[in-house]
């Protein structure tokens, strides 16, 4: 079997903030022991979900090689992305593409859409002639549902948010990537645009066999588009598995609390009335507690053991994994088995 397209092994990232105005410097563990594997052969659509500060964007940046992990490795086709040979690096830069939350910010407002789209073609020398370049651009625009004649020649501010986000997708497509890492691609737009953009991503997955890592805080859209889901809490994976199983039958107490707290778009469900007690909040930022389960202070099931030692990922009855001692009788899930959990068995269609 060839090595996976992209693999993360035990990624850990610690940020230390300079002490100056606050006395002693503090350390924040943004990512703790994160592993994932994206097959080079069968495409997959995986969500990494967590609230802001849970380490999602750090994971995206590590996977894209935009920052180095404190420990652990990111491997592209078997080679560590920190210290790759130039030819490998070129392939990595091409095959793994990114889409970010706010496409408005990325582009220079004085360049037309055409420039945004032709730059990667020139940079990677993908076209032999101007004509070929034009054809490639037109094809990529059509693939994301934009009409070239209505789109080319315009400046970014002359396009809607959804159009701009789709231009970003078209730009990523030009490089014929194998994997697109999309960090909160729809969090800034309204419900109908969300549907339009996610449909585009889903179609590319189905028709062009491109894998996706969809990074979001929104479980509802995750349910809509993905096969697998990884739930993060304060930098660490708390639960992972098939999206239907995780959402329909959450195992980790945090996931249970999350799923139960999602406001449903049906008025009169008493969402505000439930769970009236208010958290008074202790000190402490978004990082992982140094010892014990990070969720223990909020958890109704917390026992001494939970506070003493961080739980590993255990198999759950539902065929997923949860980092919780409630499943402590079950087998521990190692990095390799964890990766296998998230492999799509050609289910693609839903």
């Amino acid at each position: 079997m060839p090595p996976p397209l992209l693999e993360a092994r035990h990624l850990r990232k610690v940020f230390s903030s300079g002490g100056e105005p606050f006395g002693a410097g503090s350390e924040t563990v943004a990512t703790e022991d994160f592993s994932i594997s994206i097959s080079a052969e069968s495409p997959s659509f995986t969500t990494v979900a967590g609230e802001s500060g849970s380490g999602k964007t750090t994971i995206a940046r590590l996977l894209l090689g935009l920052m180095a992990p404190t420990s652990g490795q990111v491997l592209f086709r078997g080679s560590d992305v920190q210290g790759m040979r130039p030819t490998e690096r070129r392939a990595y830069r091409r095959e793994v593409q990114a889409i970010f939350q706010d496409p408005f910010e990325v582009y220079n407002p004085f360049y037309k859409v055409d420039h945004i789209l032709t730059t990667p073609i020139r940079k990677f020398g993908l076209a032999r002639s101007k004509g070929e370049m034009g054809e490639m651009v037109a094809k990529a625009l059509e693939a994301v549902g934009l009409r070239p004649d209505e789109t080319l020649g315009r400046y970014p501010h002359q396009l809607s948010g959804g159009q701009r986000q789709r231009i970003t997708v078209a730009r990523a497509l030009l490089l014929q990537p194998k994997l697109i890492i999309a960090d909160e691609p729809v969090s800034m737009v309204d419900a109908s645009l969300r549907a339009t953009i996610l449909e585009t991503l889903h179609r590319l997955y189905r028709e062009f066999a491109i894998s996706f890592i969809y990074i979001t805080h929104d479980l509802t859209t995750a349910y809509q588009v993905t096969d697998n889901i990884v739930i993060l809490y304060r930098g660490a994976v708390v639960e992972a598995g098939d999206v239907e199983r995780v959402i329909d039958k959450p195992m980790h107490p945090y996931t249970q609390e999350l799923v139960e707290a999602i406001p449903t778009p049906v008025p009169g469900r008493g969402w505000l009335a439930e769970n009236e007690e208010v958290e008074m909040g202790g000190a402490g930022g978004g990082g992982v507690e140094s010892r014990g389960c990070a969720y223990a202070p909020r958890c109704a099931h917390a026992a001494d053991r939970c506070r003493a030692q961080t739980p590993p990922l255990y198999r759950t009855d539902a065929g997923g994994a949860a980092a919780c001692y409630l499943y402590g009788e079950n087998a521990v899930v190692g990095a390799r088995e964890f990766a296998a959990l998230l492999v799509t068995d050609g289910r693609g269609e839903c």
Partner: protein
Amino acid sequence: MGGPATDMRQKLLEIRGLEVEFQTRRGIARAVNCIDLTLYAGERFGLVGESGSGKTTMILALLRMIREPGRISGGQVLLDGVDLLKLSDEEMRKTRLAGLAMVPQGAMNSLNPVMRVGDQIRLSMSEHGQRRPAEAGRIEELLQMVGLRPQVAELYPHELSGGMKQRACIAIAISLRPRLILADEPTSALDVVVQRHIMQTLRSLGESMDATVLLVGHDMGLMAQFTQRMGIMYGGKLVEVGTVEEIFSSPKHPYTQLLIASIPSFKSRGEFKGIPGVALSLLNPPTGCLFHPRCPQALDECASVDPSLKELDGHHTACLLYGREGTHAATPA
């Protein structure tokens, strides 16, 4: 005016013919276009609509915080009968926080990182016209009102979690007991558990102070659970106003119908219902109904007649499917 239920209630804010324009290199964009809306004391109102439809701009206009190249080009904003657009800059500064206060989008990042939470609350109170220093215990009381321990006053923002920072921002917003709290996507970065706690806090604060909460956002689930009435915007106009039940179960305006239909659920995987067509250009808006180029129910006259917000059994819709009357026949929402 808003049907029998709301007739009994006291009007707090009356927005009449509000317009905001942006001067751009390629012409004038009318981002808020002749908005009429009444908010009642103590109600929770939700404002939704397409990205770029003018929601944030409208809120900033209520606060008179529109910056160049934008300007409020017309209308009235009556808070308890006083037109905010006619106040001097100094009077308006005192009205912010005491009359109406904003919890901005990404409020958590608006705290000063090198100032203790208690000092920040004290400072913003004095900046907005509180002459004497806050009485002893007021800061602690405010923190408790938003569900924080009094000791949080001594902490720096980096020592707080995201939800705690958001609560601190709410404490600032309510410090001078505003009549109207404007919240622009106040919880979009937080997980749903923390979000629910914060929204519970906002609701009980609103109830205990009899303040109105105007919530802006894209999270339709949150809107359904938090608000009592809603307004829908498209292209700078208010196209529908109704109770939250009416908006979700029997939306009238075709845009609202499509927006509601696009909401994902845990019942359907791999189903996407976006609204086809291109968002309108404010620089070159269509004639007639702004939605007509994308409207599946458009009539011939929709391309030429601009529908005004019209009342139907206490529910307001700007759509020609529900009859066409002169602009003046319509009652403001």
